[in-house]
């Protein structure tokens, strides 16, 4: 019976191909838009999450703060007030996993005919732990390199490529500001940071080497910033509080006076970015859903016209023995077939569109089975929902009225 009704529904759709196609188009665009928007949204979310993961987890950054000198406030970071000893003291605090004092600067480096200008970070081996940064090859420098300020370097991926090309950099000697440095290792690629910088365009050297030999330092032993990793997300507030107390004490800051440093919770910033991406993803999905709804209303609209137009046919069918259920089934099946086929085409277009967006703009797009299944279920539901009313209208007709309809 259902098979026969399916045939009847199919035949009716075939009889008015242009209309069927246009009705389907609403569904195609709706489903295609939902899949594409979800793919773009989830891609953005994934990108943000990857950036967050590349930054390291449960992170604080302590920056040296403003110093007021003769009534002139110098602004954040103007005067290096943080020292290696501060870093060592923080390491002693409970719930602190790792501490990486850092002194960044910019330097020109040369290998053979190639040269490249990049950011050089003087830091300690725990920097790699804090930033959750692996080495692709070679070994990190050690505490003894820090003590003796040896000229060794770890190259970021971008730097290694620009200086060495296909050559293996490990063990080679490069010149930074005309001094020779031995390349100990190459860092694994991290990609873009949250603010779009290339994180791989970096060279890491021992903090003491940077201070004494590379950049020199106004005040010996000072660093620009200290990165601190807490043991867990739960411990972060305690760690923040105890660091503030410790540093104020160490810097001899009186009660009520401004700190000469500032502690920033990087994880909170990252979470905000992640939430923003999620909200954007939801918004895109919601906007696309509206077009799916409009597609569904399109189906209802056409089905209502179709029912009116085929009143006489309904009358004939009833006269020769169709009961209400048969008529209902026929029109409902028509709506469902239109929405399901429209959905299939829409899935194809959505996935294809996502691939094109990826190719053309290089945006990360993520098409999940979940989003395909979801839009399929939604489309079928929309078909049933919006097909139900016209089908009910058809099935509820009185045979005699339907037969007399001109």
């Amino acid at each position, binding site marked *: *019976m259902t*098979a*026969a*009704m399916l*045939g*009847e529904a199919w*035949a*009716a759709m075939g*009889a008015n191909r242009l209309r069927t196609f246009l009705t389907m188009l609403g569904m195609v665009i709706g489903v295609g838009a939902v899949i594409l928007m979800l793919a773009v949204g989830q891609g953005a979310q994934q990108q943000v999450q990857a950036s967050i993961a590349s930054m390291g987890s449960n992170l604080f950054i302590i920056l040296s703060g403003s110093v007021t000198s003769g009534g002139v406030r110098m602004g954040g970071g103007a005067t290096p007030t943080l020292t290696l000893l501060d870093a060592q003291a923080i390491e002693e605090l409970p719930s602190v996993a790792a501490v990486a004092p850092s002194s960044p600067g910019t330097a020109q480096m040369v290998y053979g005919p190639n040269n490249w200008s990049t950011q050089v970070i003087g830091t300690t081996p725990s920097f790699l732990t804090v930033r959750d940064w692996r080495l692709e090859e070679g070994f990190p420098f050690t505490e003894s390199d820090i003590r003796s300020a040896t000229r060794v370097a770890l190259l970021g991926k971008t730097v290694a490529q620009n200086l060495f090309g296909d050559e293996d950099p490990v063990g080679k000697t490069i010149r930074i500001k005309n001094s020779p440095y031995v390349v100990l290792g190459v860092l694994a690629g991290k990609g873009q940071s949250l603010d779009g910088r290339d994180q791989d365009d970096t060279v890491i050297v021992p903090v003491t080497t940077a201070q004494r030999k590379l950049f020199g330092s106004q005040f010996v032993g000072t660093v620009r910033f200290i990165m601190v990793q807490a043991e867990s997300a739960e411990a972060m507030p305690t760690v923040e509080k105890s660091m503030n107390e410790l540093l104020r004490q160490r810097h001899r800051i009186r009660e009520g006076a401004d700190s000469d440093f500032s502690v920033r919770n990087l994880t909170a910033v990252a979470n905000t970015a992640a939430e923003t991406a999620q909200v954007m993803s939801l918004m895109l999905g919601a906007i696309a859903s509206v077009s799916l709804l409009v597609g569904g209303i399109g189906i209802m609209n056409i089905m209502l016209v179709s029912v009116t137009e085929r009143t*006489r*046919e309904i*009358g*004939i*069918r*009833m*006269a*020769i*023995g*169709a*009961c*209400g*259920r*048969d008529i209902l089934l026929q029109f409902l099946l028509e709506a469902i077939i239109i929405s399901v086929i429209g959905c299939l085409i829409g899935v194809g277009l959505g996935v294809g569109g996502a691939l094109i967006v990826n190719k053309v703009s290089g945006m990360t797009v993520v098409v999940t089975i979940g989003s395909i299944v979801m839009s399929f279920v939604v489309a079928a539901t929309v078909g049933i929902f919006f097909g139900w009313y016209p089908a009910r209208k058809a099935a509820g007709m*009185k*045979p*005699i009225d339907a*037969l007399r309809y001109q």
Partner: protein
Amino acid sequence: MAQHADAVIQIDQLYKEYLTDAGPVPVLKDVRMNVAAGEFLAIMGPSGSGKSTFMNILGCLDVATSGSYFLNNRDVGNLSKDELAHLRNQVIGFVFQGFNLLPRASIEDNIALPLIYRGTPRSERLKLANQMLTKVGLASHRSSRPNQISGGQQQRVAIARALVNRPRLILADEPTGNLDTATSKEIMALFTELNERDGITIVLVTHESDIAAYAQRLVRLADGRIVYDGPLASAAAPHLESTV
């Protein structure tokens, strides 16, 4: 009311009123009529005499306001919508003035349509449809569309469709109203054959006395009442024509 095993239609004290804004308008008044199996009956009457309404009630497309109607010994008044649909499917074959074929379906599919609603499998449907097509002499047109064949052929298709479920009763509402004289004769010959050879009961509504002349029995309606019910021969032909 006595029930006869061979009675197809038994109607007693049947009334039908239409509700309008001006109040109820009676259309059929105290109609009583029995039709036995194998009869060929013509219903005549002027416009507004209630014969269309009567036909619709006979065909279970409409229900009476009061009175009793037994079709094939089943009390139609107590049946649900679905049971009425089932009865139309199993017992009655309809032939309409305007043929009422589905324009987009092939001849074959049109004839097979009633079988869909009794759940006959597709291969069986097509087999029966083609048997009926042969019976009405249109076997070569099975895959044509209704608009590709003549009016007379369309009415044959409609008759084939009415026959496909092997009904006891054929209800024909002005079946020759849209046809020319020669074609009308062919269609009426087909009805006569079905009646005489297959024993199918036929109830025919018509304006034309020469069409009614193919029947054995005549029922004349006027103003919602049966004014004549008897053998065709005793009904004066000129008198009939004047009512058209």
